[in-house]
Structure formats: structure tokens, C-alpha cells
């Protein structure tokens, strides 16, 4: 019986360890500059999202793992409606036409920003897609994830909730 219990505990530890491997915690470093236009041509910076937890996702329409995780980001937006969470997807080094071609097939309720010359991609030192940064309400990078995930469940949801829990009670 003891052996069975020990096996169960070990399995749980290994499982949670495997899940935790995806997100890389960072020591609250100031985020690089974000300077990009949305699809309507409006200029956006991180200051537009100050006071909110920010999920900043670098993606491209040619990248299958990026497209696989998009629906879960939309479900996350719906699930967290009314909470101070900004989901921002920054398309890396594509034209507006390429981005719009994808968006005509996939309706998303969160803002899409454009980075046609890759300047934001380079400032944030993104070498693989998708790469996602989770910023706290003070604009500091707290977690980085390289590769896709299901954003509305599991570790991803827990990490986002933990950042939201740091906010003063009135803004949660």
C-alpha cells in the first residue's frame, strides 16, 4: 500500500514537473519597447495596456503551431471577460494582406498588431514562433513560453490567474 502511495505521489510530481517545463519564469525584467500598428492603422505601445496583465503573442499566418493555439486564446478572452487581461497578437514580418487572409477565416476578438519589418520581433529577440510573453500590470516580463499551448486551461491559465491575483482587489 505504501509503495502504491509513493508511486502515485511520484507520478503526480513528475506530471506537474512536465507541465511546468513550458513556461519560463523571469525575474520581473522591464519589457522591451513595443511599437506597432493595428489593422486599422492605429499606433499601439505597451502604455496602452498599462494596469493590465498582458499576454503578448508573436505569431505568423504561415506557422501551423501558431494557428493551432489561436482558438484557445480566443476562448481565454471570453473566459476572462471583464478581468484586467489584455491579449495582444503581434504578427511577425508579414504584410497586412497575409494577416487579413487568415483573419477572414478565423474570427478573433483580441487585437492583432503588425510588425511588417520585423523590428518588434528583433527588439524582443524572438527566434521561434509562436513565442509568448506574459507581462504583469507594471509592464514587466514575468513569463516566457516558446511554442504553443492551450491558453484557456492547465498551467497557462494558472500562470495568468497568478499574475491577475497580484493586482489590487479593485482592479481584479
Amino acid at each position, binding site marked *: 500500500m505504501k509503495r502504491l502511495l509513493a508511486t502515485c505521489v511520484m507520478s503526480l510530481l513528475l506530471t506537474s514537473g512536465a507541465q511546468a517545463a513550458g513556461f519560463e519564469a523571469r525575474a520581473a525584467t522591464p519589457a522591451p519597447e513595443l511599437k506597432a500598428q493595428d489593422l486599422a492603422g492605429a499606433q499601439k505601445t505597451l502604455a496602452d495596456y498599462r494596469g493590465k496583465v498582458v499576454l503578448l503573442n508573436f505569431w505568423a499566418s504561415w506557422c501551423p503551431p501558431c494557428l493551432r493555439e489561436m482558438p484557445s486564446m480566443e476562448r481565454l478572452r471570453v473566459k476572462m471577460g471583464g478581468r484586467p487581461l489584455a491579449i495582444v497578437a503581434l504578427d511577425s514580418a508579414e504584410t497586412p494582406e497575409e494577416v487579413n487572409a487568415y483573419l477572414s477565416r478565423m474570427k478573433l476578438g483580441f487585437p492583432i498588431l503588425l510588425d511588417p519589418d520585423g523590428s518588434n520581433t528583433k527588439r524582443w529577440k*524572438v527566434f521561434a514562433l509562436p513565442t509568448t510573453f506574459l507581462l504583469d500590470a507594471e509592464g514587466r516580463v514575468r513569463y516566457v513560453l516558446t511554442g504553443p499551448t492551450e491558453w484557456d486551461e492547465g498551467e497557462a491559465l494558472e500562470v495568468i490567474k497568478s499574475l491577475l491575483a497580484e493586482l489590487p482587489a479593485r482592479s481584479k
Partner: protein
Amino acid sequence: MRFFRLLLLSAWACSFAVRAAVPDHQVFPAQGPQLLLWVASERGRAEPEVHAAQQLAAQGVETWSLDLVAAYFLPQLPSSMDAVSPQDLADWLRVAQASGKRVVVYAVARAAVPVLRAAAALEPAERERLCVMLMYPNLYTVAEPLAEPDFLVLGSLSGLRVRVLQPRRSAATPWLPGLLDHLAKQGAATSHVILENLREGYWARETPTEFEIAESRRMDAMLLRELNAWGCK
């Protein structure tokens, strides 16, 4: 007399040892003056690559196709490429140059690492006679988000002509200028071309676009076009 026989025997044994170090490769013979050494990526040789090699040979470009993961029984990982002996590849390059043909190496992805290390191991005069085409080369030591990229130091590439073929639809495309600078700092004469509407490894994608399928079938034409446009004849 016995000494002379022993000397001959040793020479034969030594030549066999050198030949044994040359990695096993497929040869697609042709009569033309060019020899293309095609080094597949860490994912191994794909069928469209074999087809393209056959097509090149049919158009007069002799092609030797090398699959490093198969030749050395390596796992299909980028790190496997770093473990390949540059000396083996340098010997292979010398054997190719000894054919008297104009030798161009074409290496894919992380296979660029052993190829460039082998080029660095050549004598300067041998290196100057060599041209290298690199398809989306991966030369990173570290590529972590929010950190400056760090590239491998490969040795002196002075006199080596390097052309990078970079598919547009790649996370590496914005970083191409830094990679070219790195190669130039090691002495290579660099040039590049962006391959529009294509992704890395487009010839072996699980879900290729129609354009990628079409381009996979005409890789030979793309390579011939690049060889001619580059002027490395």
C-alpha cells in the same frame, strides 16, 4: 626489397584509412563541369531531394548526396550535426575537388555547421576554390527570447564564397543580416536570396501549400538558377 614492399603496403593502408573516413554518400553522375555536394539537414534526406539530385544530374550537374544522420547513425537532432567530424567532411571536399570539377556545397539547416567547419579546415587555396550555398542555416549557439543571439565560431572562412538561401516564411528571416555579418567577420564573402512564399523545409512539410508542393518538384531548377545567378561556376 622487403622494406620497399612494407612501404607500399603502408601507403595502401593509409590511403584506405583516408578513404574510410570519407562519409558514405549517394552519387548521381553527370558529365558536366560542376559537382554539387548536397548535404541534407538533421532531419535526413527527403524524397524530393533525391528527385532533385537526379534531375540535376540529368542536366549535367553531377551531384553527391550526403545524409549525415544516416551516414553516422545519428539521432535526427540539430545537435547531431555539431558532432560530425569536420575532418571527415574536409576529406570529402578534397576528394570532390580532386575530380577536377567546380565544387559547390549545398547544406541545409544545421548541416551548415559541419560544412563550414570543414571549409575552415581546408588550406586557403582549397577554400578559395570552393563555393557554399546554405539553405536557412542554423548557426546559433544560443537563441533565447529577450537575449542577443549568439553564433558559433567556425574558424577562418577567408576566401570562401557563401550564398544563403532564406525562405521568407521563417522566424529566422529577420535575423538574416546578423547571420551574414557573422559569416563576413569570419572572412566569408557572402550574398543571399530570399525565397518568397516558402517555409523552411518546404519539400518535407506535413501540410505543404500548393506552391510549396510545386516548388519541391522544381528544386533542381531553383538550385540551377541560384548557381547561375551567383556566378560561382
